[in-house]
């Protein structure tokens, strides 16, 4: 499937405009962009799990997972954490400001293979950003999938993002949503404990595809739980993060062993990840 | 009235940190102290024990403004100590490096640091708004000087290519041609600067003193030659100590040059006075443009002298490039072996005479170093000039006195970072 909007120079970004900005936490904001060219708004199609390269002209370019779902067209949402030059500049954008976007890149989640399957989402912290795309996709096309369970954990209540949306997922009858924080505060009434503690609260069918995204430290523990349940290594999917300069398999920064995160990933099965020494 | 002091802490628009303390009583001058506030770096001491090959590299860090002069004169002193000869190509390249330094340094000093005073600005930065054209020309000329230094020395400050016995890399014929053309083109730019300067009014202040510079019979001496004075001294540079003494003012980190109890003057004006019969065509015409009669005893003429010398150097650079273009410029590795010995070399840095004198042991390790920089030599003379000028300006406001004193010191193009590691007291 060739989703890339065809153009001659793959490195040249298309212009996009910031249309809304929603602060999600102290360091994370959800940005909504639309392409300046009408044509692109319709043409730009993507798969959950893919990412774009966003240019802040004169500052730099960085990869971000698309957080919106292709089932809702016309705009792209990116949830971005303020960490360095590019992300700082993005946070300083005003509505209407112009950025560059190219993509989408990467394999994304294997939608065909997921159809009809039970899905377990496990998100840690900002890892929810890329998973949200697939979650909303599934919510919008709920009938195409089996059981849907979502585990979400953050370090503390102040780091919870997409609060409204979490509530809306929670409200759905056909989605089982659970969340936890490592450490609560005085107002926190929900679960306390790392995200793996949620596994004690639900019986997960071994015939499930698990979709995991979170900080590097989280993977190992979550994967152990999933393996215990009996989910196959090839049915545990993670999204990896690497330094990336081109997004299209040339600059070699995201190479892990013999795979390129940008081309062969960022979504990999745990089987592949374990084959790739030094992957996580 | 009563005792009053005029303290010019941090003399501005000079290189390095210097202060001037003037004490007056009832409008009369009582005391003048120029202090160098620069941290003592002790070059002559830590040079001891270093290898001869790295001595020039270390010694040129004494001062960035004259790094090329330090580098070349230090190299020559080492070569003299070890009896190392170099070929014409190497000599020419060194000369060209120095010419680059002259253009850069003289333009910097005359047009960036001194000129603002003449046009009522506090700096070239503020002057740039009112005189954008002159400032742009000055930038262009300065860059030309720097590019000459880069071409021959690898970098405009603290060159990297000069080595004992030669260079680690040579420029190409093509690069030299390009620079020669740029030098040609820049003549008109320099003429603009000369014309601008001719329209300025220099303060009238005359005080005859002992002018010292190099002198050679075949050319306007900037490198090579004997030590000479306007009063008729002529001696081999090895005898420098006979003529240039030093004292250590207890209020300063720097030593001060002295001869028979009074100051000496080195620098562009001294050179011009001493070598006035050897001016090149462009320098002669520059002299005419500026309308200065030589010898001149007006310290403020030192800046004009710098511009005249820039014209001189334009002609000399042209000749040196011709000489280089007629050689093969085939690079060869300079190979030298250390030897015990003593070597003294003297050159004219843009701001005045500069001496490096070394002694090495048989392994080529430095035993002793004696380095006298121009600002050191001028030090006593500056204080004497302040005394002499004071009565002339005493009637003015404190601000105007301060400004004039600043201008006087600046006229010397002092390099205060240079002066703080001067020779041994004898």
């Amino acid at each position: 499937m060739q989703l890339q909007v065809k153009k001659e120079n793959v490195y040249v970004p298309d212009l996009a405009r910031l249309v809304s900005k929603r602060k999600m936490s102290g360091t994370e904001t959800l940005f909504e962009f639309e392409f300046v060219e009408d044509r692109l708004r319709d043409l730009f199609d993507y798969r959950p799990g893919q990412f774009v390269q966003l240019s802040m002209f004169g500052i730099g370019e960085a990869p971000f997972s698309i957080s919106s779902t292709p089932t809702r067209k016309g705009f792209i949402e990116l949830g971005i954490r303020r960490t360095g030059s590019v992300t700082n500049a993005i946070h300083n954008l005003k509505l209407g400001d112009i950025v560059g976007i190219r993509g989408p890149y990467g394999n994304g989640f294997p939608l065909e293979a997921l159809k009809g399957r039970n899905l377990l989402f496990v998100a840690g912290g900002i890892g929810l950003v890329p998973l949200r795309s697939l979650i909303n996709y599934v919510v919008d096309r709920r009938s195409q999938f089996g059981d849907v369970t979502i585990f979400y954990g953050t370090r503390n209540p102040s780091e919870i993002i997409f609060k409204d949306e979490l509530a809306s997922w929670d409200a759905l009858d056909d989605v089982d949503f659970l969340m936890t924080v490592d450490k609560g505060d005085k107002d926190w009434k929900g679960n306390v404990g790392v995200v793996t503690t949620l596994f004690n609260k639900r019986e997960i069918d071994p015939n499930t595809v698990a979709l995991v995204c979170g900080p590097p430290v989280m993977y190992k523990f979550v994967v152990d739980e999933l393996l215990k349940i009996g989910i196959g290594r090839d049915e545990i999917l993670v999204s990896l993060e690497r330094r990336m300069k081109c997004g299209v398999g040339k600059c070699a920064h995201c190479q892990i062993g013999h795979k390129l995160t940008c081309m062969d990933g960022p979504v990999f099965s745990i089987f592949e990840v374990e084959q790739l020494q030094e992957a996580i | 009235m009563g005792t009053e002091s005029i303290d010019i802490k941090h003399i501005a628009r000079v290189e390095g940190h210097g202060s001037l303390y003037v004490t007056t009583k009832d409008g009369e001058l009582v005391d003048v102290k120029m202090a160098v506030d620069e941290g003592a770096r002790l070059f002559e001491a830590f040079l001891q024990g270093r290898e001869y090959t790295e001595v020039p590299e270390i010694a040129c860090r004494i001062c960035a403004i004259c790094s090329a002069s330090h580098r070349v004169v230090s190299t020559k002193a080492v070569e003299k100590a070890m009896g190392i000869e170099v070929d014409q190509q190497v000599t020419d390249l060194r000369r060209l490096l120095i010419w680059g330094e002259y253009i850069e340094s003289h333009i910097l000093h005359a047009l960036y640091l001194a000129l603002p005073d003449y046009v009522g600005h506090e700096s070239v930065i503020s002057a740039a708004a009112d005189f954008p054209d002159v400032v742009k020309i000055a930038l262009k000329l300065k860059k030309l000087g720097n590019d000459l230094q880069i071409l021959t020395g690898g970098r405009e400050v603290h060159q990297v290519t000069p080595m004992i016995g030669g260079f680690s890399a040579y420029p190409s014929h093509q690069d030299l041609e390009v620079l020669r053309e740029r030098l040609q083109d820049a003549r008109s730019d320099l003429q603009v600067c000369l014309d601008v300067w001719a329209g300025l009014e220099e303060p009238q202040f005359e005080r005859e003193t002992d002018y010292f510079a190099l002198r050679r019979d075949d050319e306007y001496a900037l490198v090579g030659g004997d030590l000479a004075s306007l009063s008729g001294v002529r001696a081999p540079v090895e005898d420098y100590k006979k003529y240039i003494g030093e004292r250590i003012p207890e209020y300063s980190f720097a030593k001060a040059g002295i001869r028979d109890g009074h100051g000496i003057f080195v620098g562009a004006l001294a050179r011009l006075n001493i070598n006035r019969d050897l001016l090149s065509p462009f320098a002669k015409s520059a002299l005419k443009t500026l309308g200065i009669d030589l010898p001149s005893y007006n310290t403020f003429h030192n800046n004009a002298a710098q511009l005249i010398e820039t014209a001189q150097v334009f002609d000399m650079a042209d000749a040196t490039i011709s000489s280089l273009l007629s050689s093969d410029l085939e690079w060869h590795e300079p190979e030298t072996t250390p030897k015990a010995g003593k070597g003294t070399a003297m050159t004219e840095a843009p701001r005045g005479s500069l001496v490096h004198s070394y002694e090495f042991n048989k392994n080529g390790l430095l035993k002793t170093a004696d380095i006298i920089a121009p600002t050191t030599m001028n030090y006593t003379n500056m204080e004497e000039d302040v005394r002499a000028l004071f009565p002339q300006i005493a009637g003015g406001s404190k601000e105007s006195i301060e400004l004039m004193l600043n201008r006087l010191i600046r006229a010397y193009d002092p390099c205060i970072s240079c002066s703080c590691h001067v020779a041994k007291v004898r």
Partner: protein
Amino acid sequence: MGDNGKPSVGIFGLTGCAGCQLNILNIEDHLLDILNLVDITTWVMAKQENSEGPWDVAFVEGSVAKKSEIERVKKIREKSGVLVAIGACATHGGLPGLRNFRDISEMTQIVYGENNDHIDAIPIKPVSAYVDVDYELPGCPMEKTEFLEIVKSLVMGKRPYSAQYSVCGECKALENICLLKEGKFCMGPVTQAGCNALCPSNGAVCEGCRGPAPEANWAAEVKILKKIGATPEDVRRKFLKYCPSVAEMPEFKELEF
């Protein structure tokens, strides 16, 4: 901010040769552009009227070589938003730091004779030994390009680019013949890149003026130098020539020569 909304800048010299300040003046092509971006309110070397601060950005040249400079650099730090140390003296102590390895009073005597009580010389240290430094532009002198990069970046709120590797990386990209392979004692392998391998490109060995590269493998460099004939003393001198501060680093103390 300065009066005109531009960031205010102070340029200061401690003990040094003024080469880094001169190198700012040497940016002839862009000097006027720099003045468009920032407001230089203090610069004794180039201006008669100098403000007492505060400054958005302070550039400090030179090492701390006498007692009074400790106070001075602290004052500058207090009054500055961002402090940038420029040049080897400010970042690593610089070449005059060679004196740290000898007896100061003996050296003072050598230079100034008996009459030297007023000479206030302390062991030379980089600016960071006394105050927090936000950015360092190493090199003897600092690179003009790096100065421009930091000015632009600070005005734009961007992290200035700095190469995280050694001079060899640049040297090889420039297709130079490796001087170590010619038996010359080059410090390129362990020296912070950013000078565009200036010295090796000019046929001269890297003297290490930009200080250690990130994670520099010193032990390997020692081995290389000794293999081509350097004595332990040669190696020690090479390592410390421009960077006396290196002597204080634990990795250096553990190094076998």
